């Protein structure tokens, strides 16, 4: 194979377009109840993040934040396949993964707003959403680290014999950092019950993954380096994700070790709040917006006989929940000044001296 940049100038790599056949997984053996559940999650994620975006625009969310609009099928598909005591490790782009585990919207929204009713009382922020009680073991904002931490949770589950599985989400750009390599080898060596999920949205921040990666599929083409099978799935089709997730989680639970799943997807917007995403070819953006996981899934459910009215009801219920969460978040108090000084240490405080 040719090396990147050996056959194209920087920025002149070809566009990567989504699949055309929307019906591929219509016939998959997935319960309709599971599927409507997935649909509801997709709606929650989409509507929640759309609202979050509005709140940024209204200057209510400070700092930065990273939306996964367009990428929801991965979070929803995995969320549906996980057991309630499984562990999620996500990134700064972690709103959807947090909702996927059943974390209520209000504390998530309130955390974005820096309020005392936030999930971490305003101390963590959008990039660090965590709800241990829901198995949401954290959102990590330095590239690479959390793959190694997910291993630790998987090791602990293996040691304790609980059958829990750790699922770790990260982006295409993350496959080029050292910790990725260490984590994958480590997981394979000790056959840890962990599933690594590369959400390949084709870009790191503003740089195309093809420009700075030696292989076409940044995760799948490296699986063999860890003795693992190579898998690329359609990350915009929640059923494809659900099937791959179920298989990988099953494998992990059965003691057969880790998996590495590369899910192809796309973000509708820019990398973060500050980014309009203009470095991407227009027709690429347009093609992927047309291959939106949510209408895709809705259309499938309709083909499978679900009433439009039932789906409309879900949409409406979700809208209500988002409205309520927004209200409750905005109504939240600012964190108390004392809270800045709690929980550095296990004794609850922050004192470093006697």
């Amino acid at each position, binding site marked *: 194979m040719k090396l990147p940049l050996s056959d194209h100038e920087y920025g002149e790599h070809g566009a990567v377009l989504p699949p055309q056949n929307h019906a591929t997984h219509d016939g998959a053996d997935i319960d309709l109840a599971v599927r409507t559940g997935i649909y509801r999650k997709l709606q929650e994620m989409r509507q929640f993040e759309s609202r979050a975006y509005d709140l940024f625009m209204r200057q209510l969310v400070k700092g930065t934040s990273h939306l996964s609009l367009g990428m929801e099928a991965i979070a929803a598909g995995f969320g549906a396949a996980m057991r309630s005591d499984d562990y999620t490790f996500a990134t700064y782009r972690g709103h959807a993964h947090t909702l996927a585990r059943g974390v209520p919207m209000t504390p998530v929204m309130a955390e974005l707003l820096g309020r005392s009713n936030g999930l971490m009382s305003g101390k963590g922020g959008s990039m660090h959403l965590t709800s241990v009680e829901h198995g949401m073991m954290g959102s990590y904002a330095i590239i690479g680290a959390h793959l190694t931490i997910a291993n630790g949770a998987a090791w602990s589950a293996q040691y304790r014999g609980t059958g829990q599985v750790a699922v770790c989400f990260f982006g295409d750009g993350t496959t080029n950092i050292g910790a990725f390599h260490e984590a994958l080898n480590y997981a394979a060596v000790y056959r840890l019950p962990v599933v690594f999920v590369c959400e390949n949205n084709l870009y790191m921040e503003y740089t195309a993954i093809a420009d700075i990666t030696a292989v076409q599929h940044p995760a799948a083409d490296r699986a063999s380096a860890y003795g693992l099978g190579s898998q690329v799935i359609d990350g915009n089709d929640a059923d494809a994700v659900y099937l791959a997730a179920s298989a990988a989680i099953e494998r992990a639970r059965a003691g057969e070790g880790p998996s590495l799943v590369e899910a192809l997807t796309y973000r509708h917007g820019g990398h973060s709040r500050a980014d309009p995403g203009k470095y991407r070819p227009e027709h690429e953006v347009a093609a992927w917006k047309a291959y939106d996981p949510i209408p895709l899934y809705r259309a499938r459910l309709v083909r499978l006989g679900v009433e439009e009215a039932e789906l409309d009801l879900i949409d409406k219920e979700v809208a209500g929940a988002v409205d309520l969460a927004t209200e409750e978040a905005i109504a939240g108090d600012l964190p108390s000044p004392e809270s800045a000084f709690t929980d550095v240490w296990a004794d609850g405080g*922050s004192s470093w001296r006697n």
Partner: protein
Amino acid sequence: MAQLTYRDAVARGIAQEMRRDERVVLIGEDVAGAGGVFKTTVGLLAEFGPKRVIDTPISEQAILGAAMGAAMTGLRPVAEIMFSDFFAVCWDIVVNEIAKTRYMTDGQVVLPLVIKTGNGGGLRFGAQHSQSIENWAMAVPGLKVVTPSTPEDVVGLMAAAVRSDDPVMFFEHKGLYSSKGEVPDGDIVDSLGTAKIRRPGTDATILALGMMVPRALAAADQLAGRGISAEVIDVRSLVPLDTATILSSLSRTGRLFTVEENPRLLGWGAEIASIAAEEGFWDLDGPIQRITTPHIPLPSADSLEDLVMPSADSVATTVEKALQS
């Protein structure tokens, strides 16, 4: 004389040196096509082309290793580590390789390179994207360490850093990127290792760095209104350290304060306070006080972040109280 933002000054400083010396090259994540995530390298790809301005993978160790190997063999690279917090993933290359190699090889290896980075808090980015870590670098022999606080200093110190044959850690303050200042026309070359007295005073010496400089100046304004004449020194360079300027100020004022954004323990102020407690001891009319962020990770909520970082008010209050007692 132009009004320039701090962020534009970064690009101007680099461009000035790239024009002068074609051994100067720039690498980092999103520095080329995007002009940097903080827009500090805008225009450089267009002017100098893709051989000299290069986007990299998310591989901080590979970035700094490449810069080091190139510096050893004839280039003068500028490498960007996007947020200074990310030094933690490539600290080995900085402290074990870049800092020590000249010494270990008895001077055979020269390392003319600059590592630039976005440092500091105030942007509500939370604990992993807001750290002030000049002290990490100051603790490692073999690294020069600068933090400019004005656009003019950005240009001149960048030039001095690029021209230095030693590795320079160049800390840009993220909270200052949109601040503006006058920058003289033409080439500007400052010198490393020099502090600047930003405001003369007679009752107390206040040392500050980066974004704490404007806050210290604002505090001095407040203090002036309360009859206290504070001298504000912009430390600018931690290594080499301009102990002459600092100790001579102390000898005139008799009181020393540091304003530090970093967590309390072993911030850069601890070194200067210790030097003062040894060499300036007999000049001291009272305790040395360090005004720092408490020893906690930085919270993300705006109200909490504002609460814990030193502010003009907290500086003024601390200095006033200390001088009264």
